[in-house]
């Protein structure tokens, strides 16, 4: 580990004017590990924790939920408005890491965390680190992506990103002294756009707030995370679903997959089939079986497609009940 200077952020403005060799720290649960592993070698670590205004969680009836980027995962899960109106977010929070990590890790940090690919994290000069090879292509790719990959084949590690995308959230970003709002769908990028980062943030840009619109009346939501171990594990695959059914048909809905792509993934073909689809078990099964048709699994991860379809089928059936 390289030694670094550690300073609290004086203001959002000052923090965003950071030098190239400085990094911004939210909870630090990922960042500090990366510094320890020499994946990052900053001169200065600027802790955003001092920006108390970024910790608020506020609910406005009709408008929805505003989550300060520095709210911890635990704070989000324990907020009474969130528990009442956005139980799917509570469900998601409880699947993240471990209680200790949730007490420190923040919502903004969760969205901006770096991938867990063992080549990226290990002593491999891979594409994402500026090298010229993705070692997963003909290597150990059991946990890598089945869709949206190339030239790098990571999966995005955030659980909250999957749920928030299903809820059609937006991110408020402090950029060049101003605030801008970006749909979360436009926030995450694919390696074909840039294989060294996972989102649109430019140096000095800071996610300040996550805005979640009201869940449309009558809609049901679910977050399903599949992991190999019962706790403290990243998603092998995950599903974020919002579904509005009308007796025997789906009025509208949105399905997002995690663990299958370098970003939270919206299978467009699948999602366009939702509106008007019948909710009988046979049809939901065929709907689920049409997920990830464009996937191109690698040598060791074709199971992910079966896994996603199985879990989706079950989730659609469960959500369509009553």
């Amino acid at each position, binding site marked *: 580990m390289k*030694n670094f200077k550690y300073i609290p952020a004086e203001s959002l403005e000052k923090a965003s004017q950071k030098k190239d060799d400085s990094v911004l720290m939210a909870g630090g649960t990922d960042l500090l590990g990366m510094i320890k592993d020499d994946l990052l070698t900053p001169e200065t670590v600027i802790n955003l924790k001092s920006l108390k205004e970024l910790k608020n969680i506020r609910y406005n009836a009709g408008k929805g939920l505003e989550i300060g980027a520095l709210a911890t995962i635990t704070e989000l899960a324990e907020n009474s408005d969130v528990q009442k109106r956005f139980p799917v977010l509570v469900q998601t929070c409880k699947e993240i890491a471990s209680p200790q990590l949730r007490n420190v890790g923040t919502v903004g940090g969760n969205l901006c965390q770096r991938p867990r690919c*063992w080549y990226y*994290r290990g002593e491999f000069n891979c594409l994402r680190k500026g090298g010229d090879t993705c*070692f997963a292509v003909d*290597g150990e790719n059991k946990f890598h992506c089945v869709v949206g990959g190339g030239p790098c084949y990571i999966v995005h590690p955030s659980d909250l990103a999957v749920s928030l995308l299903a809820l059609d959230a937006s991110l408020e970003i402090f950029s060049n002294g101003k605030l801008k709002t970006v749909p979360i769908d436009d926030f995450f990028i694919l390696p074909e756009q840039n294989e060294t980062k996972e989102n649109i943030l430019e140096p000095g840009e800071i996610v300040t707030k996550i805005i979640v619109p009201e869940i449309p009346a009558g809609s049901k939501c679910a977050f399903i995370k599949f992991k*190999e171990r019962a706790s403290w594990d990243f998603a*092998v695959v995950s599903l974020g679903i919002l579904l509005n059914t009308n007796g025997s048909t789906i009025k509208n809905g949105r399905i997002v997959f995690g663990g299958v792509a370098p970003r939270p993934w919206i299978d467009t073909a699948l999602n366009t089939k939702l509106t008007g689809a019948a909710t009988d078990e046979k049809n939901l099964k065929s709907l689920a079986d049409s997920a990830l048709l464009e996937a191109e699994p690698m040598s060791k991860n074709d*199971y992910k497609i079966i896994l996603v379809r199985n879990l989706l089928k079950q989730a659609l059936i469960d959500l369509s009940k009553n």
Partner: protein
Amino acid sequence: MANTKFIKSEFFFEEDVRESVAEVPVDKHQPWPENEKLKVVGKEIPRIDGYDKTSGTALYTFDINLPHMAHAKILRSVWPHARIKSIDTTQAENLPGVLAVITHKNIPEIKWFEDSFLFDTKIRYEGEEIAGIAAETEEIAEKALKLIKIEVEELDFTVDPGQAMKETAPKIHEGGNIVGGNPFTYERGNFEEGIKNADAIIEETYSTQVVVHNPTEPHCSVANWDGDKLTVWDSTQAIFTVRGVVSRALNIPENNVRVIKKYMGGGFGSKLAGGKYTVIAALLAKKTGRPVRLTLDRREMNLAVGNRPDSVQSLKLGAKKDGTLTAMSHYAYGSSGAYQSGAGCSWPFRTVYQCPNVKVEEYTVYINAGPGRPFRAPGHVQGTFAMDSAIDLLAGRINMDPLEFRLKNYAEKDQVYNIPYTSKKLREAYEAGAKAIGWEKRNKQPGVGTGRYKTGIGMGTQIWWGGGGPPAYVTLKLNRDYSVEVLAGSQDLGTGTYTFVAQVASEVLEIPMERISVILGDTGVVPYGPPSGGSVTSPSISPAVRDAAEQMKQKLMKAAAAVLSLKENDLVYKNGTVSSKSDPSKSIFLSDIMGKINEPVLVTTGAREANPEGYMIQTFGAQFADVEVDTLTGKVRVKKIVAAHDIGRVLNRTLLENQFHGGIIQGIGFALMEERIIDGNTGKVLTTNLHDYKLPLITDMPEIEVIIVSEGDPMISNTGVKGIGEPAHIPTAAAIANAIFNATGVQIKSTPMTPDKVLMALSQNS
């Protein structure tokens, strides 16, 4: 010490049968009655070091902090196979705070594994030691590592044992990649003939992964010189082994090396050998003239301090319609790593089930990866997984209940040596375990359940030596104030040695546990005892403790007879007081006896007696698993494990359950999630942290029920104790595998049985 004699003795340690001549006591003590009639032994007594550990006052090796202590790190190879052309340490040496740098260039040649050295110019695996650095702080030492410039010639490597066995594979040692040049072979009867007589035959290949010990406490040594005398604090399972290794490496006599280990956070076999890091710490301490602490980090622990070798096992079994096994063959290979270790796994196969015609051929293969080390029942875990999976398959072929099949082929004698067992209560274990798990609830037809979650019940059989034996000595010191110190040539790995030693002394001398202290893990102080591996500690040490304590009691009786002018046979000992049977008014407390004979401290030395000649000592058991398989995801949840075992006498019920819990947790890890993964293209290990190397967590734990069907084995020793550390771990994976088979009707033939494998197997089956 009482009268002793020298006898021929057999001793099983890990996979080795060691025949030796051993000094043993002539007089045998009466066997103890069953635990129910004992006062301290066998009871649920909390560990005596429990408070120190939970309060944080217990000193582990890392806690040793000496004045002026320097901190060391090891430079390790990033290449799987290479030849060092040059090393330049100038920059590292010039970094402020760096105190010493050692490489092959500036220390004497120290022989290590086979044809290699402490620092070798040929690198055979990623993680191999290249240099050591001592600095004012660990951080400086780490920085300095990066300043060492190394030029290498990279060599072709091989990290797959199947590939490494081929003629064309890169050679890791001059003699080729098959350890010893030849396979281990074993044969009895006529296998081909046996197959001809079979009504049903199965032929399957099973494979198991490399797993890494990953004890909670890292490997750590602190070295301090005082003139020519070296003291090493070391996190080790074998203080005397470490002393020997350090003395040979540094070419100094053993009396100049003192190895100390008080408390330890697990080893599981990875701390059975003397480590290079210990010698490196001693060399750096010498060079700097300061004490040196060297601690490995998690990455180093996953690269360089041992693992359980993998295995590919091809089995062919034949049986008659009535279930009689007629023939069994086992062809296997497994990776040793870059240096010699044992990958053999056929012992259970050769001996658990009655079969006249058995053939075994197994290869241990060098690959460019960290060398294996014994890991909690080496060979048996992987061997039992394959063997018991095949047994269930074969039983299914002839529509026979797998438990009935096992009972049909119950071996009354050891089949390899053709000798009787001192005791074998496997039948009782089968019966008790089956009852506790509800064996009758299992699917009569595997996989018949419907719905998302399918449940099943399966079992596995356990065999392991665990009888211990001589030499093992104990010194007991009785103080005039009615307090005791017991010094045993052993070490407590966290298993509870401190506690059971005190219990045995307390039982015999009828002195309360609070007045007994136990000193272990210090070669400068304790008499010799065996390394703590092979489940030999309690069966070797507890009889020596009893011997020392019984001698002490006899000494007190003799002295009391003299003091009271009474005949010895008229005296009884109770709670520290010796009284006359004929005239109870005549009695004397031990403090007064010792006062009269002017002895402030009485000393006795006890020894482990010999094992009986012509008998095989084994532990036995069966574990039963109740599992639930999520057919949508392939995830297996172990709901319950019943462990029913014959392990001789229980010394402490609480510690016994701890051992079972640990063994079963590790068994679940092996069965379902742990795996060292190497990237085949670069030869580098991918799972060097505890995120990628998945250990089971508390939420993965099932309900565990432990049943002991034995009450002491009087033939083996005066306490009748057998070891339990390894038996607890052996059959868990096999039981889980068979439960998955019973739940789904699909056999998963490769561990870890991760969701991807289970899901793919289910989807190919449907």
